[in-house]
């Protein structure tokens, strides 16, 4: 997709006193892309968004927006729209006045503003609430009002800071789907901050995984899920998280808890590794290594077995938990292509 909204971060560092909130963040976002910044709290994703918005200045590095260096520009000059986690609606204005505010700041005439406000409100389905004040709206309606205020002005960039985190679970699912549709319709570049991997996986075209002020991995959600490039990303993405077991590569075999688990990729020297296996990739069947069922978590359509594999805890996701009971002996296998190997020392992925 072409058009405005191309973003580039070049070696951006943000210091708070002696604490480095961001340690050299670099990424690029294509026009029209839905880009998620994913990470646990305190990982620097919100700081990154605030720097992109122009609300904070980086200590070092450059922010490029559409081939123009905007590092020194403040938020007013950047032509971005943002949805805040708290919604940040103006409490003394009606919904209509809230949505109209960015247009009024552009010195648009009343006659121009009116239809634009109506259209934005209609897009997020709050056109029947235009005369209300934010205090008279439910959380979901306030969220829509904040969305309408952000989309009413066709900004180059659409920034969203954990916009769904204050909604209840059902509303979150609905709004998530709507957000995606809205962004597609508008064709605008969206940058989305979240700590919820499910949101990032479902919404984003690409995502950047933040850990402790650094980007660990950038890629399409499916790729990041399939090939996490470090132990930290592997442990963060996926629910339940990937099983991470200490092991060794010895004689062409991946050895966990003293016994081989699967064959190792060819050409790898003996060394200590962390073995990663997605719970969904653990096959519980009649053959393979013996394990004990510690606990069965029934989730309805699936079940999770908490197993002990020669003392090491390992989880398996299976489609039906009914045949199993606590204390059962089972046998598990893992296909070689489902085994992720990480260097125990550098914590990076070992490429086969």
């Amino acid at each position, binding site marked *: 997709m072409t058009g405005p909204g191309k973003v580039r971060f070049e070696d951006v560092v943000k210091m708070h006193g002696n604490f480095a909130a961001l340690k050299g963040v670099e990424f690029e976002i294509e026009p029209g892309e839905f880009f998620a910044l994913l990470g646990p709290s305190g990982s620097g994703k919100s700081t990154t968004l605030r720097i992109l918005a122009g609300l904070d200045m980086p200590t070092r590095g450059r922010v490029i927006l559409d081939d123009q260096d905007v590092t020194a520009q403040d938020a007013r000059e950047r032509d971005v729209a943002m949805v805040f986690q708290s919604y940040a609606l103006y409490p003394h204005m009606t919904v209509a006045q809230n949505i109209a*505010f960015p247009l009024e700041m552009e010195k648009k005439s009343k006659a121009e503003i009116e239809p634009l406000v109506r259209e934005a409100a209609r897009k997020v389905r709050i056109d029947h609430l235009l005369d209300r004040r934010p205090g008279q709206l439910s959380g979901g309606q306030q969220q829509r009002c904040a969305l309408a205020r952000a989309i009413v002005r066709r900004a180059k960039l659409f920034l969203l800071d954990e916009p769904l985190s204050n909604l209840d679970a059902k509303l979150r699912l609905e709004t998530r789907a709507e957000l995606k549709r809205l962004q597609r319709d508008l064709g605008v570049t969206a940058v989305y901050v979240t700590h919820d991997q499910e949101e990032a996986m479902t919404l984003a075209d690409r995502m950047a995984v933040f850990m402790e002020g650094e980007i660990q991995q950038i890629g399409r959600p499916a790729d990041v899920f399939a090939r996490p490039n470090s132990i930290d990303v592997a442990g963060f993405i996926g629910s339940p998280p990937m099983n991470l077991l200490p092991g060794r590569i010895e004689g062409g075999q991946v050895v966990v808890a003293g016994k081989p688990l699967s064959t190792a990729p060819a050409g790898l020297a003996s060394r200590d590794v962390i073995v990663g296996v997605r719970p969904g990739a653990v096959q519980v069947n009649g053959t393979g290594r013996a394990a004990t069922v510690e606990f069965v978590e029934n989730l309805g359509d699936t079940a999770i077995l908490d197993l002990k594999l020669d003392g090491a805890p390992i989880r398996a996701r299976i489609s039906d938990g009914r045949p199993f009971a606590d204390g059962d002996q089972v046998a598990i296998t893992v296909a070689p292509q489902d085994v992720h190997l990480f260097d125990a020392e550098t914590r990076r992925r070992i490429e086969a």
Partner: protein
Amino acid sequence: MSLAEPVAAPSGAALSPAASGHLDVMARRERRFAAALLAPAFIALGATTTFPLLYLIWTSTFRMDLAMPFMDGFVGIENYRQLFADPRFWQSLSVSMIYTVTTVIAQVILGLALALLVMNMKRGQGLFRFIAILPVVLSPAVVGMVWRSFMLTPEFGVIDYLSISAGLGSQNWLGDPFMALVSVIVIHTWQWTPFAFMVLLASLASLPDDIYEAAKIDRAGPWQRFWRITLPLLRPAIVMVVIMRTMVALTAFAAIFTVTGGGPGTATEILNLYAYRKSFTELSIGYGSALAVALLVVTILISAVLFLIRRAK
């Protein structure tokens, strides 16, 4: 509960269903007990506020002249008829209005400006707040004395010294009718601006940061943020400050009394001061009471209007 039974029976509760009759009696006894507890406070309050007020209104219907006691007697509304025809009453009323309007507006504007300034201070906010609050804790009489002697005395006063240094020459600050009025207005504003400042600062500090960030994203400049967001959100606090300061300014007394005593002539004679002079200098208690009642009525009317404005939105 069993203790309540003997009381319940004679009060005729037997006619109603037992349970509700029981509760009725309990509630009545509770209410009586509560009234007994409140009574001392009510009596003290009535004796010190309501009674003097009623007595004042009663007195205002008499001619009571300590200089000519032989003329004393009930005159009905004669004092009020005289009051409406009294040019000095209208003069003092207009001084009161000028004094109130200018001091209240000055306090709100200066207080708001200071609050906005201090909000952006990174260090020393606590110290500034402490220094700013000092004038408020002083007695207005002391403030008046300090200003009259230390600040405004020709040749020696700080203000006069500054005026001389600035090439404006020595002024007779309290001797000239206009300058005297300006001086008492400045003194009142000086003492009470910190009150407006503290209230507005607290209100300002409670405004969330995120809506200012949203306003920046929406491309509002500093002035637009002030006029479109800060001011509307501070409106309740501003209206509250205006109401409280108006009531106090209308009944100001001590500072003006110590600085000018209402003079020169009647240049700084607000209604309150005129009532005092009439009652205790000219010893015309009856007419003085009528003036005090007039001040009361004016204060109530203005407060009522302000409260209506407050509720309007």
